[in-house]
């Protein structure tokens, strides 16, 4: 699965911009989640932007690497630190220092395992979420992701508060029904991985 990263990397080196976008789109989520462990969303986005811009601008100097992800994670971390230090000053650091190989970072393994286990566990249920009627889907997101009150959900969906409650309730029931049909296998798998308490 990681092989693909490395072949994209080589294509970028030879000047293929589509590969740059593919690599970017493939890894943005992971990089973003990793970066926001250290700093604010805005700074992470700036760092990711700068990092990919440099990859492209200095593509001829890219070294072949056995793990593109590993490179990108560590580079991003350095860049966040650098951007923090060079805050409000013109950046004068030597871009090359970014590409010096660094000693293995144990947390890197964890990140990859963590995010992939997470993906496996939620992908199915999430897919079912997308099958919900649109208003139930929205109501569930507003309630549990955006943390809106029923009053606010009612406002946004232009219904009364009771209807907002009903949308959430029905959304949950339907989602549960979907999940019960096919999740049995996954439940057993996750039980062994998931630390419930």
């Amino acid at each position, binding site marked *: 699965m990681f092989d693909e990263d490395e072949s994209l990397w080589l294509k970028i080196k030879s000047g293929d*911009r589509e590969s740059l976008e593919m690599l970017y789109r493939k890894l*943005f989520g992971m990089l973003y989640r990793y970066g926001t462990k250290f*700093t*604010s969303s805005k700074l992470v986005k700036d760092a990711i*932007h700068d990092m990919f811009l440099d990859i492209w601008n200095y593509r001829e100097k890219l070294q072949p690497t056995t793990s593109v992800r590993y490179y990108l994670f560590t580079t991003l971390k350095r860049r966040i630190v650098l951007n923090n230090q060079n805050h409000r000053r013109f950046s004068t650091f030597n871009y090359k220092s970014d590409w010096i190989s660094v000693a293995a970072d144990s947390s890197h393994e964890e990140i990859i395992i963590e995010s992939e286990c997470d993906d496996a566990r939620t992908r199915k*249920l999430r897919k079912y979420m997308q099958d919900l009627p649109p208003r139930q889907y929205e109501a569930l*997101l507003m309630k549990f*992701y955006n943390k809106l009150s029923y009053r606010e959900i009612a406002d946004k969906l232009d219904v009364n508060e009771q209807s907002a409650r009903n949308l959430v309730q029905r959304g949950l029931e339907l989602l549960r029904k979907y999940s019960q049909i096919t999740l049995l296998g996954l439940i057993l798998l996750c039980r062994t991985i*998931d630390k419930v*308490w």
Partner: protein
Amino acid sequence: MKDYNTYTAIDLVLDERFEKWARHPGMYPELDQFWRAWTMQYPDKLEEVMEAKRLIGAIHGEGESLQLRKEEDEVWNRLDHSLNTKPKAKLPFVSKKWMAASVAVLTIAVLSLVVFFRESGQTTQDDQDLISVINNGVTPKTVMFLDGSSVVLQPNSSLQYPRVFSESAREVTLNGEGFFEIAKEPTRPFYVYADKVVARVLGTSFIVRAFKNEPDILVQVKTGKVSVQTVKEMKSKKAHPNSTVVLIPNQQVIYSREESTLSKSLIENPALINSAVKRKFLFEDAPVKEVFESLEEAYGVTIVYDEEIMKNCVLNVSLADMPLYEKMRLICKTLEAKYEIMDSQIVVTGPGCE
């Protein structure tokens, strides 16, 4: 007491204490304890607990992935722009900075024009020297009165008031939502007429929300005391003694149009009481003290922490558009600290910074 014997996964998901615990395991020791004890007491509910956790996880995951996709597109658009406009120059950083600067200036110019046109609303003057302010814009609009009071008028809201208040009373009429900050004048009470209800105050700050298309009218108090009654009662002269509801800070009254009743309650969430006053919550190299103070002020909570240990901590965070607990979570993640909520206090413990 809830009947936990019949609790299903869905009941658990809808139980705020459960959801909070499932979302932030380990962050609230009292919840850890509670749910650990709970699952021991109801061992046959284990499957429901697992299912509830999965449901919460999936919904949150979906929300997160939507958000991620948004961020991904945003950064890609920016990157695409940088890639297209920036030649492989010898001075990449300078030109990049200049590019960013000029884009920023242009954006600000365009935005301010938009804001200027959208915000300017309409102000008209009646023959009786009544002034009407209508906020048709998308951002709140502040109206100042001659007595020093002010109101932050939310979008789609309007306000009517006399140019000069009378000797005995200051009276305004509101449609929609406003955040009032009233100058103290014990001899001249301030009245807000909001459709079916009227709020009477001496000097205080509070929110009135009365949109015609909403079933309820809401008055929430931040500071001071506000008395609220229905317009009908007020005009009837022989008002029922219980017809007036007196609110103190963090209390609210809801008027139900359907039932024509006023009911008093506590403000559920420590909502951003003066959310009307748009705060950016953007901190650059800000000492922790400053960040906490601004949260304390905005939410009316007390944040307890060791100033000595944290005196070197600075934060670079943008905390806009998220609830208080989300803000605390993000700050604590950055500081490698933990927070607990005890009554109206938030206790932050952490290792401090070098």
